[in-house]
């Protein structure tokens, strides 16, 4: 049997570890529970009763509100679960392998440490991607059904009350804008990108953390700080003396470097509002997410490659 000399990085070996990580996470019942919970939350949106408002005060506002509520709840849930998936699963996997000594048996094979790290990260990301895809499918299906129901009820109302063609057209346009759109899918993709950055950040923390709890808490804190770092950075840099003194300037820049600006990924609000997310915005977000993920992974590798077990 001939075994090839292993290169620095092997995509096939990374895929083996990633697929195993995916299976491992799928077989953990906690993830079934979270997925089930997500489904329940999304499905509960069906229970929202249709609203009616006088046509002259805003027929389109009614349709928008109903569909916006559905999208907001669904995408909020998707975001919440993808972030929890990203932090908890990544924080759990590496220390568990060390604790159970399974890591010894893996690293005792011709497996470079980079392959192991990348495999773990990709496994987590695959799980998040699949989970989001399933939730997106469910949300889009529900939204399409809901949009048709709202449109039908509004048109029925329009017939009864004799609304003008321009009002009817306005309602149709509003429903189309708040239905299943490309921007909505782009918003879901932005959630995935954000989760990828969070997962790689949690992976980095777990390479030097002493416990799963520490990784989970620290990663959560970094995530929250990252959500507000843009405001804080702008405040410091724009304040009369803050931006001028070297220390404040350096502090603001250092914060911007250490904590990813998670606020950038909040384009889902645009999708919820039924507005268009330009392709350039998504391309730019993808670039930022790939950059952050790559930086965190390289940092993880630096720490992990010198780690002793």
């Amino acid at each position, binding site marked *: *049997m001939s075994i*090839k000399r292993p290169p620095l990085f092997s995509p096939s070996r990374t895929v083996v570890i990633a697929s195993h990580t995916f299976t491992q996470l799928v077989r953990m019942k906690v993830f079934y529970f979270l997925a089930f919970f997500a489904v329940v939350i999304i499905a509960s949106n069906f229970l929202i009763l249709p609203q009616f408002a006088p046509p002259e005060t805003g027929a389109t506002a009614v349709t928008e509100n109903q569909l916006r509520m559905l999208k907001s709840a669904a995408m909020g849930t998707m975001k919440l679960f993808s972030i929890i998936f990203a932090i908890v699963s990544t924080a759990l996997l590496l220390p568990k392998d060390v604790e159970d*000594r399974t890591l010894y*048996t893996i690293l005792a*094979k011709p497996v470079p440490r980079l392959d192991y790290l990348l495999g773990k990260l990709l496994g987590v990301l695959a799980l998040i991607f699949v989970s989001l895809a399933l939730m997106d499918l469910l949300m889009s299906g529900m939204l399409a059904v809901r949009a048709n129901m709202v449109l039908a009820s509004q048109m029925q109302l329009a017939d009864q009350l004799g609304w003008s063609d321009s009002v009817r057209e306005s309602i149709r346009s509003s429903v189309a804008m708040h239905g299943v759109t490309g921007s909505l899918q782009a918003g879901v993709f932005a959630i995935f990108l954000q989760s990828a950055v969070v997962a790689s950040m949690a992976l980095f923390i777990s390479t030097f953390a002493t416990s799963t709890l520490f990784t989970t808490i620290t990663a959560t804190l970094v995530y929250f700080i990252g959500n507000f770092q843009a405001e804080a950075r702008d405040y410091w840099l724009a304040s009369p003396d803050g931006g001028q003194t070297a220390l404040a300037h350096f502090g603001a820049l250092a914060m911007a470097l250490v904590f990813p600006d998670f606020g950038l990924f909040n384009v889902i609000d645009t999708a919820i509002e039924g507005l268009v997310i330009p392709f350039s915005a998504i391309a730019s977000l993808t670039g930022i997410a790939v950059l952050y993920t790559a930086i965190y992974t390289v940092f993880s590798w630096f720490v992990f490659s010198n780690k002793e077990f």
Partner: protein
Amino acid sequence: MPAESAVKIENLVKDFKTSREPLRAVDGVSLEIAAGEVYGLIGPNGSGKSTTMKALLGLVAPTSGSCSIFGRDSMKVDSRNDVGFLPENPYFYKHLTGAETIRFYGRLCGLRGKALVQRIEELLVLVGLEDARDRRLGGYSKGMLQRIGLAQALVQEPRLVILDEPTAGVDPLGSRQIRDLIFSLRARGITVFLCSHLLEQVQEVCDRVGIIFRGKMVKEGPLEELISIENQTEIILENAPPELIARLSAMIAAEPAATLVKTGRPRTTLERLFLREAAHQRDSETR
């Protein structure tokens, strides 16, 4: 000793950082294991056995000194092509079945397709887990886990197998199976490097032994040389009448330089007694 050693450790020193002063876990250990040999490293808990093994596997970096496997620096990944490792008290992934576990490790070693399927079957037979192949490891006993651990260690047909306390916590039957597996590895020319504090087992299977104490190698060499008492001779007789024993005793007494130290009946070991009774019981139940 053949030109290419399976394992070569030269002046290995390993210090661990502590809050006070560095803790020296291994202090200038050197050893060499020839290809095909079964080598046992024995010593009390905390003597540096596991650290030596970890250094050999690249899991810890030597503070000074070097380790190599078949001539390759053990800190390099490619040195692990020829190594199988079974850690002490391994858990593995509980969500995988026995066959899936071997498949996972086989794929990590680059095995694919029919070769991998065939290897999985061979190993399951070798370690006697054919019936448990589709059972998840969460339901395996301690002995079964050790055996699946041995299977994963052997998946890429390594030339060197490193076993850290392979029978720790395993019952006598399971322990005997693992011992038999080590014998079969030796018969196939595979080098075995094992750590244990179960001295009787080391004595049974090892060709050479090293004794490590507080990080230092205090004694090392072929087992027979180390354990034989050079100025004593053992004669074991079967069906000898009492008259013969008396004559022999008289002859020895007549020789001033020799002293009869002990006569009596040799005893079996408790392990052999247990295994014989267990086998007897199993045979009577199958009849």
